[in-house]
């Protein structure tokens, strides 16, 4: 409910601004600035202030290839600690992501300032995990054991729809929803990682998340993009009606 509220606000911003822009641009083409974008994820550090057991930071650079397509490269770091009544767990690692971003807005709407689209990424994580202690209790009594430190490498795929809005000149904010599929957790199926950097719970084959970004834009080139004008269907209908009238008249 609350997440939806945040999404709706972002969409409204894009819609309101783009409607105004679209009305202001009667030309057949628009000038779109291509940009290098450097973004940082802000929710991870904010969460760390409230919960010192999880630190997750992420940043990315994307470079516009044209008005629709950008290449993406991201890197992140996470430090995860967890404990409950029957075990404790530590995980520290880095991840990299590479992929593309597709802007689904029309050029005359996006104007190089607004982005609403989808990102497709491949993620690779390397991490050190340890279970310093765990307890198992059954009929025969309690077994206290531990799992030593091990270094692992795993990978995943991510689909990431989202929104970016230029708030000030060359500064944008936005959010992305992440839908991830774990390809390989780097461990045997018995000891899947409780946390997987860049992915989430390594015990599950799918994970979801939401990220909030601040993005700094560096324009490096301007391109002229022709606007595809829609042919109004009403004209054909009118012509047909006129033809029918003239045939009937004859």
């Amino acid at each position: 409910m609350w997440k939806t509220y945040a999404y709706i606000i972002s969409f409204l911003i894009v819609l309101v601004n783009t409607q105004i822009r679209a009305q202001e641009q009667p030309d057949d083409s628009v000038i779109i600035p291509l940009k290098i974008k450097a973004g940082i994820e802000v929710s991870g550090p904010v969460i760390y202030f409230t919960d010192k057991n999880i630190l997750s930071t992420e940043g990315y650079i994307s470079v516009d290839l044209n008005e629709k397509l950008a290449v993406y490269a991201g890197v992140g770091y996470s430090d995860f600690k967890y404990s409950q009544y029957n075990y404790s767990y530590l995980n520290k690692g880095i991840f990299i992501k590479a992929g593309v971003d597709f802007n689904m807005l029309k050029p005359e709407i996006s104007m190089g300032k607004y982005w609403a689209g989808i990102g497709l990424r491949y993620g690779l994580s390397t991490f050190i995990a340890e279970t310093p202690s765990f307890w198992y209790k059954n009929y025969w009594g309690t077994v206290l054991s531990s799992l030593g430190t091990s270094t692992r490498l795993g990978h995943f795929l991510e689909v990431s729809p989202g929104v970016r809005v230029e708030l000030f000149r060359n500064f944008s904010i936005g959010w992305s929803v992440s839908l991830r599929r774990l390809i390989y957790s780097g461990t045997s199926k018995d000891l899947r990682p409780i946390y997987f950097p860049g992915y989430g719970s390594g015990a599950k084959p799918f994970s979801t998340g939401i990220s909030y970004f601040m993005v700094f834009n560096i324009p490096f080139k301007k391109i002229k993009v022709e606007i595809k004008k829609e042919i109004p269907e009403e004209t054909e209908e009118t012509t047909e009606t006129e033809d029918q009238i003239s045939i009937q008249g004859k």
Partner: protein
Amino acid sequence: MRSFKTYIPGAIFAWTLAVMVSCTPGSCFEKTDALLTASFYRNDAGKLQPPDSLTLFGLKMDTNKIYNKTLNVQPALLPLNADTTSCSFVIRINGITDTMTFWYSSYPHLVSMECGYTFYHQLVDKPSVTDNIIDSVNIGNRNITTLDVENIRIYY
């Protein structure tokens, strides 16, 4: 753009609340005990048939019975000791007592973040059993996990 700025505090509040709700740890609803599943068969007919009465407990654990003159047990679920490589059970079928010993290896298995770890086992040898009422014990599936799979057949 002016109108957008008025939404920022609301959006931040909504997001913070969403994060707090979504990060609340869940409860453990999964099965966490890997138990050896033993089915009872009549030796003469070879048919699946529960004993009329079953008493079962670990050797030297007679004060803590797993089954105590329980009727129509099918299958019986036996917990193995993850701290050792073998364990013995006293089994009393229809009032006649036998002793069974299992040899196995144990290894940790993550059930889930909410439940933590358990131990899975693998039978490494055929169980030994006295033959007062039990005729033989056959291994069906060596892997003892939280799945409901028949591991051994007890013919009596």
